[in-house]
C-alpha cells in the first residue's frame, strides 16, 4: 500500500496512474473472489470477506474519481489508500503466515482513514488542532498499538481458529495482550465519540451550502461510527454476533466513499445556477448591491460578500466606496475574481464553494461585465469618498490656520500695541514733572512699535507672500531659499508664469518641504528644482537628510497632497530611511 500519491503533472501520467490503481484493485478483488470461491477463506468469515471486497472496490473507485477532480488535495489518495487497506485487512482471513500477519496489522487501518476523510471534508484538510489530534490519535491506535498488541498475541487461545503463524509474535502474555487490547478499544471508543462530537459541531455551525454537502457523509459516517462502536463493544461476545456486526459495518463503510462523492457533487452547485445568474443579471436593475444578492442566490451562500478592487489605491472597497479588508472571517474563504487577467473583485464566501473552482470561475465569467460595472461604480464612490475627506481636511486645515493666525496676532503684535498704549499714557503723565523719564518711555515705545511692525510683516507673509504675486515664483522661491536654515540650491527654469493658483501651490510645496527639512531631516543641503512644460509644472525638493518621512502621517504633507490634488495634480514623497527625502509635485497648468 502506498501513500505516495503526489499530484501528477501530465495527463499521460494521470492516465497511467489511474490504470495502475484500477488494475491493482481489480487484481486484488479477483484474488479475493478466487480465494473465497476456492475455500481458502475460513467459512465463518466468508460473508465478511465478500462485503469487505465490495467496500474496498468502492473506496478505490470513488478515490480515483475524487483524485481526478482535485489532484491537489489528499482526499482521493486517502480513499484509494483506505480501499487497499481494506483489501490488505482481508488478508487476515488467509491461511499462510505473511499475508495473515499483514492482514492483522492493516485490518483496523480503514477506520482511522475514514475518520480522517470525514473530518477533512470537504476541502481535504483538517480544520483545527483538535481535529489533527483526533486523526493522529486514530492512526496511532490502529497502527502502532495494533502492532504492539500483536507481539503478545498467541492465537492458540482464539477459539475455532486453526490460524497460521503470527510473524510479529514475541511471547505469549495473555494478561498484557488483554490490557493492550482493552486500551486500544477504550481509546478507539473515545476517539470515535470525539470525531462524532466534532462532526455534530460542524453541522451546527455549517452554512446552507456546507450542510447540503455534509448531509450524505454525515449519515453514512455516523452509521459507520455507531457500528464501529458496536463492533468494539461486541468484540467480547460470540464470534457469530461479532461477524454480523462487522459485516454491517463493512456495508456502511462501503457507502462512505459514495456518500463522500455525493457530498462533493452537492457542494458544487451545478451549471443551472450559472444560467439562472446570467438571466437574472440581464434583468437586473442598475442598483448597487443587486449583484451581490444575485451572486448570493446563484451560489446559494447568504454569507457571500463582494469587495471591489481599486487599482489606483491598491485597496478593496465596498459598493459604498469605503475601504474594506476582505479578510477571511471565521469559516469563510476569499477568492479573487479576475476579468481579462485583471483583478476586479474579491468574493468572501463559504468554503464549500471553494471545493468547485470551476463553478466560481463560471460564475465570475457570467457576472464579468456586471462585476466590472459595479467595480467602476465602487471605484467612483471611493474617489468621491476620498474627495469628501480631502475637502473636509482642507476646510479643517483652513480653520487651524486661522486659529494659529489669531493666536499669533494676539500674543505678538497685539500685546506689543497694548504695551505701547500704556507706555505712551505713562509718558504723557510724566512729560511735565519728569521729562527725562518721559523721553525714555517714548524711546521704549518706538522700539515696541518697530517690533510690532516686524511681527505683522512676518505674519502677513505667512498669510500670503506678496512677493509671489508681485514678482513671481522664481523671486519668491529665492527669498524662501535665503531664509531657510540649510543651504538651498535653487534651479528654477520657467519661460512663463503659471496661473496664480498653481504658482501659489508650487510655492507652498517648496515652503512646507523646506520647513520639514529644517525641522526633521537633519540635512546640510536641499535642492529645489522647478521646470515647466506644455502641460505641467514640475516641482522637486530633495535633501540629504535622514529620510523616513511619511506622507500620510504628518498634517503638513497631507495638507500639501490635498492642495495639489485639488488642482488635479499629484504629490509623491520618496523617503527611504537614511537616504534623504525627495518630494515631487506635478501641477497641471489648466484644470
Amino acid at each position: 500500500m502506498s501513500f505516495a500519491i503526489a499530484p501528477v503533472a501530465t495527463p499521460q501520467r494521470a492516465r497511467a496512474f489511474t490504470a495502475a490503481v484500477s488494475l491493482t484493485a481489480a487484481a486484488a478483488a479477483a484474488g479475493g473472489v478466487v480465494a473465497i470461491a476456492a475455500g481458502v477463506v475460513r467459512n465463518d468469515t466468508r460473508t465478511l470477506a465478500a462485503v469487505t471486497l465490495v467496500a474496498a472496490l468502492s473506496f478505490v473507485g470513488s478515490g480515483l474519481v475524487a483524485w481526478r477532480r482535485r489532484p491537489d488535495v489528499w482526499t482521493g489518495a486517502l480513499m484509494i489508500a483506505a480501499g487497499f487497506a481494506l483489501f490488505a485487512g482481508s488478508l487476515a482471513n488467509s491461511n499462510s503466515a505473511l499475508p495473515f500477519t499483514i492482514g492483522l496489522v492493516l485490518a483496523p487501518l480503514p477506520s482511522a482513514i475514514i475518520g480522517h476523510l470525514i473530518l477533512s471534508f470537504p476541502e481535504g484538510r483538517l480544520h483545527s488542532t483538535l481535529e489533527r489530534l483526533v486523526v493522529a490519535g486514530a492512526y496511532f491506535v490502529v497502527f502502532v498499538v495494533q502492532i504492539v498488541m500483536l507481539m503478545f498475541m498467541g492465537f492458540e487461545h482464539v477459539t475455532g481458529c486453526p490460524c497460521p503463524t503470527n510473524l510479529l509474535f514475541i511471547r505469549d502474555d495473555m494478561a498484557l495482550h488483554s490490557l493492550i487490547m482493552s486500551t486500544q478499544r477504550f481509546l478507539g471508543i473515545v476517539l470515535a465519540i470525539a470525531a462524532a462530537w466534532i462532526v455534530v459541531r460542524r453541522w451546527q455551525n455549517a452554512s446552507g451550502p456546507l450542510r447540503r454537502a455534509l448531509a450524505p457523509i454525515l449519515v453514512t459516517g455516523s452509521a459507520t461510527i455507531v457500528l464501529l462502536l458496536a463492533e468494539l463493544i461486541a468484540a467480547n461476545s460470540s464470534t457469530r454476533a461479532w461477524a454480523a456486526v462487522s459485516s454491517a459495518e463493512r456495508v456502511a463503510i462501503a457507502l462512505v466513499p459514495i456518500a463522500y462523492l455525493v457530498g462533493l457533487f452537492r457542494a458544487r452547485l451545478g451549471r443551472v445556477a450559472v444560467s439562472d445568474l446570467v438571466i437574472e443579471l440581464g434583468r437586473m436593475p442598475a442598483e448597487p448591491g443587486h449583484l451581490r444578492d444575485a451572486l448570493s442566490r446563484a451560489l446559494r451562500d447568504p454569507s457571500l460578500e463582494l469587495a471591489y478592487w481599486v487599482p489606483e489605491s491598491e485597496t478593496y472597497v465596498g459598493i459604498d466606496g469605503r475601504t474594506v479588508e476582505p479578510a477571511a472571517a471565521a469559516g469563510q474563504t476569499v477568492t479573487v475574481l479576475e476579468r481579462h487577467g485583471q483583478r476586479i473583485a474579491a468574493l468572501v464566501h463559504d468554503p464549500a464553494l471553494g471545493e468547485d473552482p470551476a463553478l466560481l470561475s463560471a460564475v465570475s465569467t457570467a457576472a464579468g461585465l456586471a462585476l466590472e460595472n459595479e467595480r467602476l461604480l465602487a471605484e467612483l464612490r471611493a474617489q468621491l469618498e476620498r474627495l469628501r475627506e480631502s475637502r473636509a481636511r482642507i476646510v479643517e486645515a483652513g480653520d487651524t490656520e486661522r486659529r494659529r493666525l489669531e493666536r499669533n496676532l494676539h500674543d505678538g503684535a497685539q500685546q506689543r500695541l497694548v504695551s505701547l498704549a500704556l507706555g505712551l499714557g505713562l509718558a504723557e503723565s510724566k512729560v511735565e514733572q519728569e521729562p527725562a523719564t518721559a523721553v525714555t518711555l517714548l524711546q521704549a515705545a518706538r522700539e515696541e512699535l518697530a517690533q510690532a511692525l516686524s511681527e505683522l510683516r512676518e505674519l502677513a507673509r505667512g498669510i500670503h507672500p506678496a512677493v509671489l504675486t508681485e514678482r513671481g515664483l522664481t523671486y519668491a522661491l529665492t527669498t524662501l531659499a535665503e531664509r531657510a536654515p540649510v543651504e538651498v540650491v535653487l534651479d528654477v527654469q520657467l519661460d512663463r508664469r503659471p496661473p496664480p493658483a498653481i504658482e501659489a501651490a508650487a510655492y507652498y510645496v517648496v515652503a512646507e518641504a523646506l520647513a520639514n527639512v529644517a525641522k526633521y531631516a537633519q540635512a546640510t543641503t536641499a535642492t529645489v528644482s522647478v521646470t515647466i512644460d506644455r502641460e505641467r509644472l514640475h516641482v522637486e525638493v530633495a535633501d540629504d537628510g535622514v529620510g523616513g518621512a511619511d506622507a500620510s502621517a504628518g498634517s503638513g504633507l497631507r495638507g500639501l497632497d490635498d492642495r495639489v490634488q485639488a488642482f488635479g495634480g499629484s504629490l509623491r514623497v520618496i523617503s527611504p530611511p537614511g537616504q534623504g527625502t525627495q518630494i515631487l509635485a506635478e501641477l497641471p497648468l489648466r484644470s
Partner: protein
Amino acid sequence: MPITVLIVDDHPSFRAMARAVLADDGFCVVGEAADAESGLAVARELRPDCVLLDVQLGDADGFALAEALAVGGERPAVVMTSGRDRGDFEALIGASAACGFIPKERLSGSALGELLR
C-alpha cells in the same frame, strides 16, 4: 493707605507695564503671577485689595480663577482685563464674581479706581 493690587497675566511685558502705570497712579502692586495656580496661591498669601486678572491665562480660564478667588473670608475685588474685545466677554463678565472689565490698552489708575469705588 494705597490700594494693594495683584496682577495675574501670562504676558510678562503687560505685567511690567501695568505695574508701572498703576504705581504711577498711586496703587501699590504687591505681586504678580503668570498662571491661575500661582495666582490663587499668591492672592491667598498676600491678600490684596484688588486682583487685575487676564481673561485668558495661557490654557487656563481667568473666569474660573475669579470664581475661586470669590470663595473664602477676605475676598479681593477682581477686575478682568484682556487684549481682546470686551464684547467677546460681556455676558461672562456680568455673570462672574468680577466687579468689572478694563481693556488692556485703557488700563490706568483712574479706570481701576472707578471700578473699585
